């Protein structure tokens, strides 16, 4: 027993010590590599990329970052390294909007490390307002800026302390594949099936009968593109940019037609080409009208996510500057018309 006064201050003192210890532990171990590249352990891909990506972008060594949304989930950086003689790193934000990816791109540009930046351009990510963020997966903005005064959510966070710190330590102890930059998230053959993706398409089509399509879709996309990507490329003319339109399944395009945004999407692609082709430091590849990929539904886990084999095909094409995919002034119109024709003539009932 002690006096209540002594007990009161002792409890407050113990509490302060515990909180400070927790903060110090997170600062020292820095499981998200927010402050530095770890010196006494190997950093791990141990959390959702929205939390990991800013630290990777800021503190890892690379010269060719690959940015994009979850479509990049099976992208294998080491394969790219071999094919293009670069030191790449994958920076993906699941369901990332162009605004969110823009925040990540800002970090990359600020480091000045990138000689070449590959940007996987998912047209959907440019939908909505210029500063659209994911509705549920809040972007931890305190990890995306250099302001040390808003780092409390990182330093005083029991989730990081009890989950990420042990996770990264265990990954090092057992040398798990979480330590590899090639870790693929969903590259499991069992996930890919034609039957599954058709069922998925029919489900989304049925569950969304009254789609709220804005008439200003195209204008908003253009605006988002101008602010969240084009302006950043224009300000970074010494870096080479490769932008590619990923080969999402033909059903993803059929769904766009169902929503009434197919023409907006196609015009947006044309706009992206028109704006970036003038810059001189940008190459654009388009894989979206290659029927061999997009019509083979066994390549997909859902409407948009494909296997790592397709990623390899993309890398091969970019490494060899494959003219079948590289967009030029002469081919852009024809390529877009080709995609439009494929979508319009696709008969879902024949797929079932």
């Amino acid at each position, binding site marked *: 027993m002690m*006096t209540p006064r002594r007990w009161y201050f002792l409890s407050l003192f113990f509490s302060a010590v515990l909180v400070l210890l927790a903060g110090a532990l997170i600062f020292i171990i820095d499981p998200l590599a927010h402050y530095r590249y770890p010196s006494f352990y190997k950093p791990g891909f141990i959390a959702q990329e929205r939390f990991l990506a800013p630290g990777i972008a800021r503190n890892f060594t690379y010269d060719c970052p690959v940015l994009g949304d979850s479509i990049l989930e099976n992208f294998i950086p080491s394969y790219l390294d071999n094919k293009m003689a670069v030191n790449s790193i994958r920076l993906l934000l699941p369901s990332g909007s162009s605004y969110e990816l823009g925040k990540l791109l800002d970090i990359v540009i600020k480091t000045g490390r990138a000689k070449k930046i590959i940007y996987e351009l998912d047209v959907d990510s440019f939908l909505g307002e210029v500063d659209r963020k994911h509705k549920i997966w809040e972007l931890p903005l305190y990890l995306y800026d250099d302001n040390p005064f808003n780092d409390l959510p990182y330093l005083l966070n029991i989730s990081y*302390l009890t989950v990420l710190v042990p996770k990264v330590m265990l990954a090092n102890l057992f040398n798990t594949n979480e330590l590899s930059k090639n870790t693929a998230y*969903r590259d499991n053959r069992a996930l890919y099936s034609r039957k599954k993706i058709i069922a998925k398409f029919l489900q989304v089509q049925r569950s969304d009968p009254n789609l709220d399509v804005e008439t200003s879709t195209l204008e908003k996309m253009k605006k988002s593109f101008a602010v969240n990507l084009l302006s950043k490329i224009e300000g970074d003319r010494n870096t080479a940019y490769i932008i590619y339109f990923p080969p999402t399944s033909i059903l993803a395009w059929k769904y766009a037609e169902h929503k009434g945004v197919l023409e907006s999407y196609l015009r947006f692609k044309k706009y992206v080409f028109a704006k970036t082709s003038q810059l001189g430091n940008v190459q654009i590849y388009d894989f979206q009208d290659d029927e061999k990929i997009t019509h083979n539904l066994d390549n997909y886990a859902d409407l948009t996510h494909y296997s790592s084999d397709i990623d390899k095909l993309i890398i091969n094409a970019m490494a060899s500057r494959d003219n079948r995919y590289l967009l030029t002034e002469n081919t852009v119109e024809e390529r877009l018309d080709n995609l439009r024709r494929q979508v319009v003539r696709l008969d879902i009932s024949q797929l079932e």
Partner: protein
Amino acid sequence: MLFNSYGFIFLFFPVVFYVYFYLHDKKFFRTGKAWLTGSSFFFYAWWNPIYLPLLLFSISVNYFIGLRFAQDTNSKTRNLFLTTGIIFNLVLLGYFKYTNFFISNINSLLGSEISLVHLILPLGISFFTFSQIAYLADCYKGRSAETDFLNYALFVSFFPKMIQGPIARYEEIAPQFINPKNNGKDYTNMATALFVFAMGLFKKVFIADNLADWANHGFDTAKHLSFLAAWATSLSYTLQLYFDFSGYTDMAIGIALMFNISLPANFNSPYQAVSIQDFWRRWHITLSCFLRDYIYIPLGGNRRGKLRTYLNILITFLLGGIWHGAGWTFIFWGILHGLALSVNRIWQNLGFKINTALSWFITFNFVNLAWVFFRAKEWKDALKVLKGMFGLTGIVLPPALQTRLAFLADSGVVFGDMFPDFNNWRHMILYLSICIPVVFLAKNSGQFKERFQPTLQTAIITAVLLSAGLLSFFHAKQFIYEYF
């Protein structure tokens, strides 16, 4: 401003606390009271300054009606003032809380298209309105009214209890502000207060906020729920509600005790109740007392025959349901509890008795099922959860059991993902496995408070709870662990 925020804990509270007792040390007691009242108004206005005048208006009107009771002995005038006062409070509450509910029901009934009113529900309006109705009713019954406006304003607005209760009565609170014993810091109270606050903070941010993720997914996001997922959803919410509300109340009790003010207890292990009547003696106790003393008893209570008693119970709980929220699901929840209490009363009147464990089991399951309606935003959400709980959407078991229990597949049991899209469902199982025995068997924070001793052991426990709570404010939710 929330109790569980750094702004409150590291800025607002220390400043209010130290200035208050500094003024006491200098014998400026009335200035101290004014400081505490002003701070409470600031606390309220922090949320939305627009509604501070509303609070002041409500306080002023009720204060003056109370004064009239003190000055007037004419029973007719007193009746008139009581009626006016109650109508004023109910209109205020009704306008902000029920206008849109009323309009939307009129629209669906008559097919009209009356526009909804753009209103933000003033924080704590249900609590400060009920406190003041109770005050007027007590003054009417002859208790002397408060003549000092500052005392009255502090009683209504005292920040620890204003937003979520407990619904303290005037005579429980106001005399403590003028009791000379309560002048100056009291480390015995402060130690107990810190202990209780730490328990409350831990319950709220470490337990309830985590459970909320799974309950929210099950109720709001999931398209359908299989048997186990539905039970996990309903139990997560049942536990979340208890730990959230009782945790917040513990924090309120702790903060008030720092100022040497004892607030009434609001929870007493409600999920250990062995009958629905017992449940309402343990759950939101101050609301139950209010409903009993100011609705049930004035309606006649049990003094007008059995049928009238049952009707009175039903009316009381119907109003209790409406008080909780403007929606048919709340009303239905109130009716369910009213019916259950009536059945409980009939059962007692008939002299039936059942095994205590069975009685507890029935009570808990009823409460758990009824919470489904309380939580669901729409009927379809409630039905989704209930269908799952009753096995109407099938049973899914883990694939690991498939070889051993393959024969169940013929009965429609599926082996696969038991909790699809429940983020971190293993944590959910862990939380439920720990919290369920705790609420069923363990002592509650009120009992721990009574037994509190300033020892090294309690200091360490307090520090662990407090620091775990402080480190949970930025709980990154499920999303940091989850991939896609």
